[in-house]
Structure formats: C-alpha cells, structure tokens
C-alpha cells in the first residue's frame, strides 16, 4: 500500500529540477503532456519517454516515477487489450498504450517535484478564484494522509480476521467494505474539522490575500524555459521532416 503513495506524493528533496520556479516545471510538464497527446508514431514516443526519464533522473524521482507507471500498468494492459479486441492493429494498440504511459509520467514530473505550496503559488499566478485553489491544493495535500489512514484501517480489520485477498472476485470486492466505510467516515470527519478550524482562524475574512512567498523568475529559469521552447520546436520540426 505504501509504495503506492511513494509514487504519487511530493517529498522534500533537492535537485536542479526541484529548485526551478514551479511555473517552469509546470510548463515543462505541460509541453511533454501536450506533445504526448499529439504524437502518433512509436519513434516520437521513444524520444518523449527518453526525455521524461531523463528529467526523472535529473530530479532524482525516477524510482518513484517508475512506481507510478507500474501502478498504472493494469490500466495500460486493459487499454492495450481493449484496443486489440475492438479490432485495431498491434502497432496502433502499442501507440495508444505508450501515449497513456507518457501522459501519466509527464504529469507526474510536476507533482513529484513541486510541493503543495508551490502548486498554490502557481495557481494563484494564474488568477484562479482562491476557493478553487484552496480546494484543489487541500485535496493534493490530503492524499498521503488518507493513504496513511487506509493503511491503519487495513491493519485494524486484518487484526479482526478480515482476509482481503480471499475468495472469488465478488467476495473480494465485498472485502473492501470494512476498509472503505471507515475511510470515508474519517475523511468526512476530517474535512468538517478542517472547515471549523479554518473558520475559527477567519478564513475568507479579508478579500485581498497576500502571500509570504512570491514567485520570481531567476536566470536559470529563463534559461530552462528557452531550452524547453527550443526543444519543443525542434521536436515538432523533426517530426514534420520525418513525415515528409
């Protein structure tokens, strides 16, 4: 269970990528994400995935990125099988699966290297309504907390003789009821407590919010941004040359 959290959740770390302005990290992630959406040959995906893995190495999160991918492998296999069954050819099914992997891993770059606080700042620089930002950032922040709850609930119920992995598929799904109900109840209780705690600290009282940290592009941010742009343009040009 814990390895699942490991693959998804930000952890404080230091690397060249971590120290970039979160807006730059978002742009890198987003460019790779968009390129993955529009790519359509195996060759393109090889380049994209290499770039993603290279970023994984540079930001020292490769291991956890691979965990995210292994976790999503069930979906990949499903997508692959469905495509084949529906009658698409092998190459096309492989491309769709690769696209899924590229989408997942490119978006994980941003989430693995940016803290919830950075996410908050980025969203604010986009001038989104603060309530929306708060809800989104809180949701991200609570993922590890909820996973920790889940681990403890599973331990509790296993100590009362629950054997989750036993029985046929229907029995197994039913086995999750004693885990899911406490998990949902705990989450509702927690969100109520959070709301009360926030209100007692005057959340929403002042209309204009200021921020302790503000984002500033540094020289290396400009550099990485230009590099990113150049590579994206190069990639698109290259692809068009190949298609010619």
């Amino acid at each position, binding site marked *: 269970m*814990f*390895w699942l959290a*490991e693959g998804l959740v930000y952890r404080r770390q230091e690397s060249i990528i971590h120290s970039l302005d979160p807006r730059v990290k978002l742009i890198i992630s987003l460019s790779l994400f968009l390129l993955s959406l529009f790519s359509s040959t195996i060759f393109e995906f090889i380049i994209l995935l290499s770039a993603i893995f290279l970023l994984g190495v540079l930001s020292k999160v490769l291991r956890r990125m691979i965990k995210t991918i292994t976790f999503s492998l069930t979906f990949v296999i499903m997508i692959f099988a469905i495509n084949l069954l529906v009658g698409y050819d092998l190459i096309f099914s492989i491309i769709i699966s690769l696209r899924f992997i590229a989408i997942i891993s490119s978006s994980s770059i941003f989430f693995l290297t940016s803290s919830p606080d950075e996410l908050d700042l980025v969203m604010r620089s986009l001038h989104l309504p603060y309530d929306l930002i708060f809800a989104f950032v809180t949701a991200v922040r609570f993922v590890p907390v909820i996973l920790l*709850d889940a681990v*403890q*609930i599973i*331990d*509790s*119920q*296993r*100590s*009362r*003789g*629950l*054997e989750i992995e036993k029985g046929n598929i229907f029995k197994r799904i039913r086995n999750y*009821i*004693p885990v899911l*109900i*406490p998990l949902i*109840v*705990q989450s509702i*209780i927690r969100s109520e407590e959070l709301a009360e705690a926030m209100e007692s600290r005057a959340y929403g009282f002042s209309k204009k919010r200021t921020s302790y940290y503000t984002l500033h592009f540094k020289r290396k941010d400009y550099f990485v941004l230009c590099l990113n742009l150049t590579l994206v343009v190069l990639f698109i040009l290259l692809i068009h040359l190949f298609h010619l």
Partner: protein
Amino acid sequence: MIEVESLYFKYPLANDYVLKNISLKIGLGEVVGIMGGNGSGKTTLIKHFNGLLKPTKGFVKVFGKDTRKESVAYFSKKVGLVFQNPGHQIFSDTVWNEVAFALKNFGFEEEIINKRVKWALEFFNLIQYKDMSPLLLSGGEKKRLCLASVLAWNPDFIILDEPTVGQDFLQKEKLIEIIKMLVTQNKTVIVVSHDVEFIWLLQPRLILISNGIIVKDGDCRSVFKDDSVLEKCGITKPQLVELYEELYPLIERPPVDIVEARSMMLKLLRGLK
C-alpha cells in the same frame, strides 16, 4: 507464549531501523506495560505480535509458530489487538454487527456468535445500544466497543494501544478491573500507554523502549527506581512513587493504589502521635 528473538525491523523504503535487536518472552497470565516516547516504536512492536508486520531480521513466534508461516487471521485469533483510534475500525450498521464481525471472520457457529456478542455488549454496558449505529456512540463508548469486539472472540493475548486516551476516570478504573479479571483467567494483557498513573495501578511487568531499543524490562517497582533510564525515555514517576521517595524510610515501599496509600498514611500518623 510470545517469543521475540533479535528482532530488527525497518519499514519498506525507510533507511533506518525502527526496532533494533529486540528480544523478549511474554507468557500467559502476565500484565505487561510498554512505555516510551512518541515515535519510539511501540506500535510497530505490537504489530509484530499478530503478524501484521514481519521482522526484517530475527523472528517472532506465537505459541511456537513463526509469524511468517501463517496468516494474520490465524495469529489474530490468539492475539487480539485493539488499536488507538476507533475510527479506524468501526464500519457496521449496528453495534451488534460490529462485535459480530470478527467472530464471523473466524468462522464461529451462529449460536456461539450470538452468545459471545451478547456477553461482550453486556459486559461493557453497551447492550442497550445494540441496534444503534456505532457511529452515533460517544468517543469513550466507541473505544469500549472496540475492546468488546476483541474480547468477544476470547483471545489469549489482549494488546491495547493507548486504551486510556479520552476515557473518564470511571472508565479507567473499570478498565483496570477488567484487565485484572482477564489475568485471573490466565490471559495476558499488554498495554501500550503514556499514562504513568494508569500503568502504576496495574503493577505490571514494565518494558521501556527508546529509539527502537528495549532499555529496561522488569517489574514496574524496580523500573520506576531507575532515574537515569526514566529520564532517557522522558517518563515521569507516578505520584505514589514520588510520595514514597519523599517519605522514605518512614514507609517501606511505594503504595500500589490510593487505598493502600491512605492506610499507610494513617498508620504513620498514628505512630507519630
């Protein structure tokens, strides 16, 4: 019988050992207290006693069987764990079904289940709530319900993680009575707690843990004498022990509870007259 031999444990993906070279034996009919600062590894240790966690090095045997060899359910039938937070286990539609859940998992017969659930609910004064949703109970009642749901299947070892948190004085006294009663039935109760006064009233064998190492294991009177170890674990002395040290040598040993303290004081005062 729980045997722990040179147990080392590290959580997957963590770098350091949380438990280091733990060896101990716990027999039947004992009361055992486990104390230590936050994060010292107490909860991690007791999760080894029913096989929820498996040693990284060394072994844990329950009634001679290695915890790696059988399922958690197999060991849980003999070793009942009651966790700190009732919110992590309560899920049934009624209080009755909450207690029956484990008994059904362990495959008891319908008739026995009904008998045991009724007994457990009556014993913990919860029978009047039997058709109510357990989520509507108060915090302390939920805690009692969790205890009831474990005692219902009659395990040989009962392990309680922080049982006194959020309990009023009366419930604490009652808990002490229950623990003492269980011991007369040759059961073993292991209590993890930060509550020194509560631990003192149990007069247990006391194990102190600091940074994943057992730093002291002995009867609680001798453990509470060891100032340097207590300081290391950040544990204060029970008030009755303080009283005894204050009055030494006027009284010969620390009183085990307030009743004994009172009679000792009276005797002392009469002697002074």
